[in-house]
């Protein structure tokens, strides 16, 4: 720690920093392009020229690049020196020589770094009268628009894409003043973090192709601090809206979570709120109606059903909506849960309980610093930003061990990747626990991957155990927690939940209530079901049972902002506000409560779930307390977190580890039976699957099978097979894939739903000739 002198200001610096970092930290602006806090210095753009006055007064001052100049105590630097200004002006003039005359039609205009720097340093007019170099563009898919003429060769894109996000399909080509940044061939960028190119590019080479379709300038956008609703990480975002429509979402830095980047699901998934089939008017008995009439109809149905009522909240609805629904159900004497899948409910509650016992999950910034990790399941699909944090850990040398049943992008970075079929996951984890407890790594060659995993875990100082809850069962979650305890106090435990508020939903849902509710609906004990932001009818494993059970209902009341299978089947439908149209609170995977603010309002009246429930309570003659006081009663001293702050860990009464028996009875396995495994991709999420831009990228629907088990069964790559589940059958082409476990068929969520099976259930396979 020392100080330097920049233009007469005394600036402190940290050891290892350069002049640019110290100046930016002190809010002194040195013009720059290629330096980025996440990517470091490169010295490619030559813009951050400063003048350094040597200590020896007989020597002349020299010009240096601020981003490359190491700091020493007492260094005298001038940003405003004439010589430095001249260098910067010449650099800008040179960069602008080939820059096209595009600003009016460039989406970057208004937030363009090159525009700012040209105004700040450059000559006001162009002197160059020669011809400009041009590049043809590439089609980079539906999310990113490419306009290569605007490039200034700062290398930020490839440094982010290749070095930071570890993608391999974007690079630099050619040489001299003709360096080209693109793909080898046209085609969508494959990396799930490619959307960050839009923000990281200092000019308009990479722009947001979704925003472009309905473009508005940055100064016209209404913004407010928000939280991403698409997974349990809770990245901070800044949505922008105009004229009553949501236009785009950008990253908003959070010091411990997403600092500079968000994933493509967060950036492009928001278009679900602009989906053409989004319900915008209340509907009762098949016809659009007014909000008042819908409430009256709902209230009269509830009154006539008397006490036979259930309330299904949601892990993707905010804490307020879930708490209000629970409060209403408590008043009416009904059952409440936030999960439609009993298996998922038990697993989530078990995970929250084990997090409460073992200490909270690490933040993304902490995950980046780990030495070794044991990953269970496909994190890229359930928590893409944890995947990105693990990629940073990998870059720093962390050893990643992976247990998965279906293909996952993290496998390419794993030191040991082991495919385990869903039903064997529990025995595998138990075996790992035994091996770790035995303390001596057995040199048994038959257990090579297992002993490798044990060795990498035991040899690490900072360890992370992380699992994707959706593909774990309630029996596997406690084993993971036991593993964490066995591995020592420095071991951190984390779970990627399904749903932005899954942690909060687990705190509110009593264990086992989803099964109780489903059985009560089946038995006709529940006559009215209020579903807030959930889709029981579209569920993959329990969907068939819910669909059959819901025929017993006298009324299905649905509150949602997307047209799910349940919303389509609703007797009374209340369209509610999407997350940018209301405020609320999400609790992320760490247990951090974060508030989001309303960004804009639509012309239609769209209340939040909490508001509809409050109004419904009034129509029923019960005046419910306001959401903050309801939450204050549940969580002592809970204060609704202010949007735009870093959020705070929720203090909740500790949940007991659920002891409910396995929900689905173990099916008899026979030779013709295969296990189904859920294969997912980064755009696969309840809300984001209504975003048209992302939906173009859905992977082809295939049945993925491991090559050796396919050969044993006589199945060829590309041949057609017929899969039969409990509620249907489907013919799919086969794709052989090494990332699938033996005896397992990896299929997408919509196929699982159609077959009526869940992850780990058995399937019948028949070859179609």
């Amino acid at each position, binding site marked *: 720690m020392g100080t330097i002198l920049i233009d007469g200001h005394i600036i402190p610096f940290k050891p290892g920093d350069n002049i640019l970092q110290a100046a930016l930290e002190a809010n002194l602006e040195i013009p720059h392009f290629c330096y980025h806090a996440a990517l470091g210095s490169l010295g490619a753009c030559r813009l951050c020229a400063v003048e350094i006055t040597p200590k020896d007064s007989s020597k002349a001052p020299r010009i240096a690049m601020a981003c490359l100049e190491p700091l020493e105590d007492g260094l005298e630097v001038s940003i405003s020196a004439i010589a430095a200004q001249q260098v910067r002006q010449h650099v800008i003039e040179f960069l602008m020589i080939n820059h096209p005359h595009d600003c*009016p039609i460039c989406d970057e205009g208004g937030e363009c770094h090159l525009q700012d720097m040209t105004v700040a340093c450059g000559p006001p007019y162009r002197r160059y009268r020669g*011809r400009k170099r041009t590049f043809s563009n590439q089609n980079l898919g539906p999310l990113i628009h490419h306009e290569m003429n605007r490039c200034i060769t700062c290398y930020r894109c490839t440094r982010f894409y290749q070095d930071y996000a570890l993608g391999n399909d974007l690079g630099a080509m050619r040489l001299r003043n003709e360096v080209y940044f*693109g793909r080898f061939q046209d085609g969508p960028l494959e990396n799930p973090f490619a959307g960050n190119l839009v923000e990281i590019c200092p000019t308009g080479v990479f722009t947001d192709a979704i925003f472009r379709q309905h473009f508005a300038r940055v100064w016209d956008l209404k913004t407010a601090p928000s939280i991403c609703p698409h997974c349990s990480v809770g990245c901070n975002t800044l949505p922008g809206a105009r004229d009553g429509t949501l236009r785009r979402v950008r990253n908003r830095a959070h010091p411990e979570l997403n600092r500079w980047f968000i994933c493509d699901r967060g950036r492009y998934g928001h278009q679900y709120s602009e989906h053409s089939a989004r319900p915008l008017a209340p509907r009762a008995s098949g016809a659009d109606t007014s909000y008042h009439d819908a409430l009256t109809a709902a209230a009269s149905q509830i009154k006539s059903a008397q006490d036979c009522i259930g309330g299904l909240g949601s892990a993707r609805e905010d804490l307020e909506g879930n708490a209000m629904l629970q409060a209403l159900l408590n008043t009416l004497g009904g059952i409440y849960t936030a999960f439609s899948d009993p298996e998922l409910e038990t697993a989530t509650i078990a995970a929250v309980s084990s997090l409460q016992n073992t200490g909270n999950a690490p933040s993304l910034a902490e995950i980046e610093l780990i030495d070794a990790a044991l990953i269970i399941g496909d994190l890229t699909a359930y928590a893409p930003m944890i995947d990105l944090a693990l990629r940073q850990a990998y870059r720093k040398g962390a050893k990643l061990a992976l247990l998965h049943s279906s293909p996952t992008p993290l496998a390419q970075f794993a030191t040991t990747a082991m495919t385990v079929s869903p039903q064997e996951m529990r025995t595998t984890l138990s075996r790992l626990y035994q091996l770790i407890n035995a303390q001596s790594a057995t040199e048994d060659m038959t257990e090579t991957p297992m002993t490798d995993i044990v060795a990498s875990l035991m040899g690490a100082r900072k360890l992370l155990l992380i699992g994707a809850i959706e593909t774990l069962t309630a029996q596997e979650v406690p084993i993971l927690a036991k593993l964490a305890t066995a591995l020592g106090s420095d071991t951190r435990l984390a779970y990627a939940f399904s749903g932005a508020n899954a942690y909060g939903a687990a705190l509110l849902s009593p264990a086992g209530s989803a099964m109780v509710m489903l059985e009560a609906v089946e038995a006709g004990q529940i006559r009215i079901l209020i579903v807030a932001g959930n889709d029981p009818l579209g569920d993959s494993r329990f969907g068939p049972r819910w669909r059959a059970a819901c025929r017993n209902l006298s009324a299905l009341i649905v509150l949602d902002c997307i047209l799910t299978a349940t919303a389509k089947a609703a007797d009374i439908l209340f369209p509610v506000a999407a997350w940018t149209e209301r405020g609320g609170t999400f609790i992320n995977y760490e247990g951090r409560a974060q508030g989001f603010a309303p960004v804009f309002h639509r012309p239609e009246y769209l209340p939040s779930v909490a508001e509809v429930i409050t109004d419904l309570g009034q129509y029923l003659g019960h005046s419910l307390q306001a959401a903050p006081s309801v939450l204050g009663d549940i969580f002592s001293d809970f204060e609704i977190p202010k949007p735009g702050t870093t959020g705070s860990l929720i203090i909740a009464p500790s949940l007991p580890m659920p002891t409910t028996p396995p929900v689905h009875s173990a099916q008899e396995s026979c030779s013709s039976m295969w296990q189904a495994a859920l294969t997912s991709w980064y755009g696969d999420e309840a809300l984001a699957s209504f975003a048209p831009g992302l939906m173009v990228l859905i992977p082809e629907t295939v049945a993925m099978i491991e090559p050796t088990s396919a050969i044993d069964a006589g199945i060829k790559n590309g041949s057609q097979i017929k899969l039969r589940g409990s509620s249907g059958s489907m013919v799919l082409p086969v794709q052989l894939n090494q990332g699938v476990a033996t005896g397992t068929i990896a299929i997408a969520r919509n196929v699982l739903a159609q077959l009526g099976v869940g992850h780990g259930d058995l399937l019948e396979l028949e070859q179609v000739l």
Partner: protein
Amino acid sequence: MNKKQTNDYTLALIKGLGHSLWAVLRHAFVKRETVSYPDIKRSLPLRWRGRIVLTRDPDGEERCVACYLCSAVCPVDCIHLQAHQNNDGRRYPETFSIDFSRCIFCGFCEEACPTLAIQLTPDFEMCERHHESLVYEKNQLLIDGQGKHPDYNFYRHAGVAIPGKAIGEAKGDTSPVDRDNNLP
């Protein structure tokens, strides 16, 4: 000394008064400069700041590229537009409205326009019975000509490709670099 000064001043005053009276008398007999509007309409200079129009380029396409600079610069916020991207690469305003009951005809929009699309014309006769009818939509604003700036076509200078002009065919461009080849 003092007295002489006073005398000179009075003399100048009388002289000036005489001149003025003579001028008034003379003008009673010269040709009138005022005309009786609206029976007679004067032709106004081209740079007069009146009713705003959107013009077309020499190819007959809309000049406006919906860059939002006019609406940003407008001091009374009377311009509202929404950009739309054509499949062929051209950008144009999907909607464009100017509230002339708010417009102060300052001409900032014309100055800001990078494509010479928005132009103020010498027409000022815009009386309407209702406030709403002073909100002009795009079909009322868009004219079929080039206005007072003929021969300028923004897309002939811009780097983007449009039908009939591929990348590298703009004025002053070289043909695109072959990215698959490292030869100079």
